[in-house]
C-alpha cells in the first residue's frame, strides 16, 4: 500500500486531467446537445435533418474509433492539435448526441397547450424555445443528463489509448513498475466510483430543487 501513497502526486495530477476532461467535455456537450435538440424540434426541415443525422452518427460510431481517427487521421489532413484538447473535442461531440437525446425526452414533457398558448401570445420561435421549452425540458431531464455525465466520466478512460495521461493511464504506468494490478486498478476503480457518486448525488439534489411541480 505504501507505494500508492508515494505516487500520490502523479495520480493526483492524472486525476486532475480526468476531471478536466469530464468537466470541459461535460459543459460543452450540455450546451451543444441542447442546441442540437433545439434544431431537432425546429420547424426548419434542414436543421431537423442535420440534427437527426448528427445524433445517429455519433450514437452509432464507437468513441474509441472517433478518438483514434481524430488523433491519427486529422494530422494527415493538416490539423495537428495537442492530445488533451483533441480528446476534449471528441468527447464533447460524442456525448452531445446522448445529451441531445436526453433533452429531447424532456421536450416531450412540455405540454402542447403551453406551446400553443405561447404562439397565441405572439412569442417568436426563439422566444418559445428560450423561455418555455428549453428550460422546462432541461429541468425534466436532469437525471438522464446526470447519467450521461457519469458515462462521460467513465469514457474519459479511453483517452489513455491515445496518449492522454489521465487516471487510467497513470494506473497503467504505476502498475508497470509495481506489478500489483489488482490493488492498483481497484484503487483507480474506487476513484472513478467516487466521481460517479458525486455526479449522481449532485444530479439528484438538483432535480429535487428544480423539479417542476405540476
Amino acid at each position, binding site marked *: 500500500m505504501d507505494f500508492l501513497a508515494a505516487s500520490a502526486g502523479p495520480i493526483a495530477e492524472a486525476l486532475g486531467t480526468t476531471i478536466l476532461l469530464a468537466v470541459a467535455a461535460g459543459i460543452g456537450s450540455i450546451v451543444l446537445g441542447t442546441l442540437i435538440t433545439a434544431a431537432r424540434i425546429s420547424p426548419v426541415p434542414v436543421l431537423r435533418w442535420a440534427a437527426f443525422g448528427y445524433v445517429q452518427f455519433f450514437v452509432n460510431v464507437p468513441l474509441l474509433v472517433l478518438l483514434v481517427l481524430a488523433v491519427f487521421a486529422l*494530422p494527415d489532413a493538416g490539423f495537428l492539435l495537442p492530445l488533451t484538447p483533441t480528446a476534449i473535442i471528441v468527447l464533447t461531440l460524442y456525448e452531445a448526441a446522448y445529451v441531445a437525446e436526453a433533452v429531447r425526452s424532456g421536450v416531450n414533457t412540455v405540454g402542447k397547450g403551453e406551446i400553443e398558448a405561447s404562439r397565441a401570445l405572439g412569442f417568436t420561435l426563439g422566444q418559445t424555445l428560450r423561455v418555455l421549452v428549453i428550460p422546462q425540458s432541461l429541468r425534466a431531464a436532469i437525471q438522464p443528463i446526470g447519467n450521461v455525465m457519469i458515462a462521460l466520466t467513465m469514457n474519459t478512460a479511453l483517452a489513455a489509448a491515445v496518449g492522454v495521461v489521465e487516471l487510467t493511464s497513470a494506473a497503467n504506468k504505476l502498475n*508497470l*513498475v*509495481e506489478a500489483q*494490478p489488482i490493488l492498483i486498478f481497484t484503487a483507480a476503480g474506487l476513484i472513478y466510483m467516487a466521481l460517479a457518486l458525486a455526479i449522481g448525488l449532485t444530479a439528484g439534489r438538483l432535480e429535487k430543487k428544480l423539479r417542476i411541480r405540476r
Partner: protein
Amino acid sequence: MITSRSNLRRGLVLLASAATVVALSACSSGAGSSAVPGSDPTASAAAGSLDSVYANAPVAEAAALIPGSTMEKIKQRGKLIVAEALDAPLLSQQDPTNPDDVEGFDADLAKMLAIYILGEPNVEIVPPASETREALLANGTVDVVFNTYTITEKRAEQVDFAGPYLESGLAVAVKSDNTDINGIDDLGGKTVIVGANTPAVTAVPEEQPTATIVSFATDPQALQALTQGRGDAYVQDFTLLASHAIDDKSIKVVGQPFTTEAYGIGLKKDDSQFKSFINDWLLKIQADGSWAKIWDATLGSAVESSAPTPPAIGSVPGS
C-alpha cells in the same frame, strides 16, 4: 465497427460507413506496410523453414512430467494456455488473413514449449492486457506468459520467471530528416513517444528526467504519431525499431540500445518444479540450435547480424 439500429435509415448507414472507411484509409496510409511484417515475402519463407524445427523439437521424457505437477496437469488438459500478444510484429503477431496462425519469437517459443510438454504445438492464446499479467498467472488463467516480460525484482515478488530467454535493449528512432537527435543523450527536454506498458515508460525518465513522455496503446499508433510529429523521438525495443526502419524510410534508428532488457517466461509464484522444468527445456533448445533458428526466422529477419548468444539462465536478479 458500426452498431446499426433497426430504425436507422439505410442512407445514413451508408454515409456513416463511407465516412469511416475514408477516414480509416487516410489513417492507415501514413503507417505504410511497416505494421505488417507478414507482407515481406522473405519473412514467410523463413517462417516456413521452422517446420523442420518443430518436427525435431525436443519432447520431455515421461519421467519429467512428475505426477501432480503443473506440467502433468497441462499434459492431461491437452493444451498449453499462454498469455501472449496478437499485435507484436516479429514477436507474436496474428496473421489477419489466417487467425489461427500466430508467428514471432515469443509465439514460436510457446509452440516449442507446447511440443515439449504435449508432443504437439497445441497452444491456447489468452491475449493479455500486459497490465494484468501478474493477475492472470496468480489466478491460474494462464500457464505461462510469453510477452516480452522484462524480469524485474518487483515483479519477481508477484510471479516466478524462467529464463531469461532473450535479451534486448531499448533504442531511439527519429524521423529521417532529424539531425539533432543522435541517441538517448539528446532527448533532454524533448517529447518522447513510447508504447504504453513497455519498459520505455520507466526507462526514458530514468535516463532523461526532463523529457515529456507520451504513450500510445499500440506500436503502429506510436509509429504513426512519430511520423506525424506528435513527438521528437520514439523509444522502443531495438529489434522492433530496426524492422520498422527497413520498411519505412521516413524514420531511422539512431545510436545504440541504451538499456538491457532481459525477458523472462512468467510463471505462477512458488512453483519451483515447473520453473526448473522450463529452464531445462530452454537449455535443451539452446543446445540443439533451435533457439537460434527461431531467432533467425523471426527477430533476425529485421537485422543483419546473426543470432546472438542466448542469455544464461538465472543471470538476472529476479530470475
